């Protein structure tokens, strides 16, 4: 690939307290579409996203966003450069209304009507519960709010951590459609355990194991190679139906 990747990690090592969690993580995320980060539980996927976002500090290595180094940047700066983060626990402000949650994600507190109506079309529940406390939403609706918040303004890159965890199949199907649409204007780096979900969206895929990159390639190739899947993920498509 000749174009500069939108995100590039090289030799990233991250410690949490006294534990070495990321030993050596290097991969590129090309601009556009969905890039998937796979790996077993505890492999270091969340830690990778948090390190990109500046919520953990890398001990070594470099992280570049559009070629510019952000390894030591403050989370606030990273967010302002155009990176949004949807954490594993969704990070919803339960005591605030849906509207207030969304307002916080807009840098000046106002909404672009076109984007807002697009979000309401993608996730009708957001319109329905607009004035309700976000803490009262169901798990799926909270996830929709977390994603809506990430796209209320155009972001170059959206980091999303396991959005389908604990969700019903119908909601997951709606989520696929939403992600396809979001990926037309933003690059998505998606951490996912649900391989079918990942496969239906992802173009490139990086597999992390024990804090290291175990595989880096195209999603199609991985999806066709069940032996590789088993080796990398100890899961097969049939099991994960």
């Amino acid at each position, binding site marked *: 690939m000749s174009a500069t990747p939108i995100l590039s990690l090289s030799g990233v090592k991250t410690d949490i307290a006294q534990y070495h969690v990321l030993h050596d993580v290097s991969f590129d995320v090309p601009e556009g579409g969905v890039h998937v980060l796979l790996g077993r539980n505890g492999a270091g996927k969340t830690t990778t996203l948090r390190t990109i*976002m500046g*919520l953990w500090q890398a001990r070594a290595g470099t992280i570049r966003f559009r070629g510019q180094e952000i390894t030591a940047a403050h989370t606030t700066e990273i967010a302002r450069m155009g990176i*949004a*983060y949807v*954490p594993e626990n969704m990070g919803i402000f339960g*005591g605030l209304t849906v509207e207030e949650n969304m307002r916080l994600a807009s840098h000046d507190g106002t909404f672009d009507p076109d984007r807002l109506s697009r979000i309401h079309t993608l996730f009708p529940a957001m319109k329905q519960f607009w004035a309700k406390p976000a803490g009262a939403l169901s798990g799926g609706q909270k996830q929709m709010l977390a994603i809506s918040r990430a796209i209320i303004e155009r972001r170059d890159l959206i980091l999303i951590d396991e959005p389908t965890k604990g969700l019903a199949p119908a909601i997951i199907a709606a989520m696929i459609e939403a992600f396809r649409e979001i990926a037309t204007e933003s690059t998505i780096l998606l951490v996912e355990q649900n391989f079918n979900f990942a496969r239906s969206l992802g173009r490139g895929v990086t597999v992390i194991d024990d804090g290291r990159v175990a595989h880096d390639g195209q999603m199609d190739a991985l999806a066709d190679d069940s032996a590789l899947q088993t080796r990398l993920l100890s899961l097969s498509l049939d099991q994960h139906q």
Partner: protein
Amino acid sequence: MERLQQTVARMGGVNLLPVAVALAALIAIGAPATWVTLTVAGLAMGMMIFLMASGLSLVFGLMDVLNFGHSAFISFGAFIAASTLALLSGWVAADSLLYNLLALGIAISAAGLFGLVAGWFFEVVIVKPVYQDHLRQILITMGALIVAEQLILAIWGGSPLSVPRPAFLQGSWLIGDTTIEIYRVFAFLLGFVAFLGLRYTLKSTRIGLLIRAGVENREMVESLGFRIDRLFAGVFMVGSALAAIGGAMWAGYETLITPDLGAEMMVLVFIVVIIGGLGSIEGSLLGALLVGLTGNYVGFLAPKLALASNMILMMVILLWRPQGLRPAVRT
């Protein structure tokens, strides 16, 4: 039982507790005139403690910072207001509401301004280096408290200082056989206005929205692109200013103050913050009114229990609601 619970919840739930305490006290005391006097005293005391407690609660809620130095702002506020009033003694004693109000306004503003500036200094120099480290927070803020108390001793000396009260706040109203001290009504009103102002800021402004969000989830506010440390510095300054104003009001209430005034109030302030629930000003208000009322009623009914009564109140409430009455939502 369930119906009763629902009815209580509809009428205001835990917000009704001060009313329940007041009604119980009316039955126990019997004499309505005495009860009114005690209730006004309790509400006034509660509002002054609210001023002292609200900032501490927000600071803890927003940044998990344990500030044991908070009482220094209360003491300094009291002494600065006392000295300002002494300087303006001509206006304080004048038979003119305008001059009285000016003197009082200047004294309270001086205390508040000191709180803002000293709060900023305290946050930047003492608290910022120990974010996220509770043990060091306790040690360093206690150290700062000792320094502040010594400063007060050095500036004002150790003997009690008498606080002149503006003429228009002297005396009481006599309604039937009930006496109501004017100063208490004034203290209540001032505290209530401060509460309304804080509530408006938190509920209806963008800064307030950020503060409420920050109390719930600091990291997420930063991930959305906002500097929570700057927000925190602002909250710390305002909280310190409110504590100083609370101290100033308390000085006028006591009329004779000593340097350990802040430390004495701090016990009540901590009780209020804990029973109210961390990070919520509604909780602080509720806790403060309960503490003020209980202290005054028990002080009358069973003076020997006065000191213990608020501790008992705290234990009972924590057994019932370990998070306090109205804690801020945390995610």
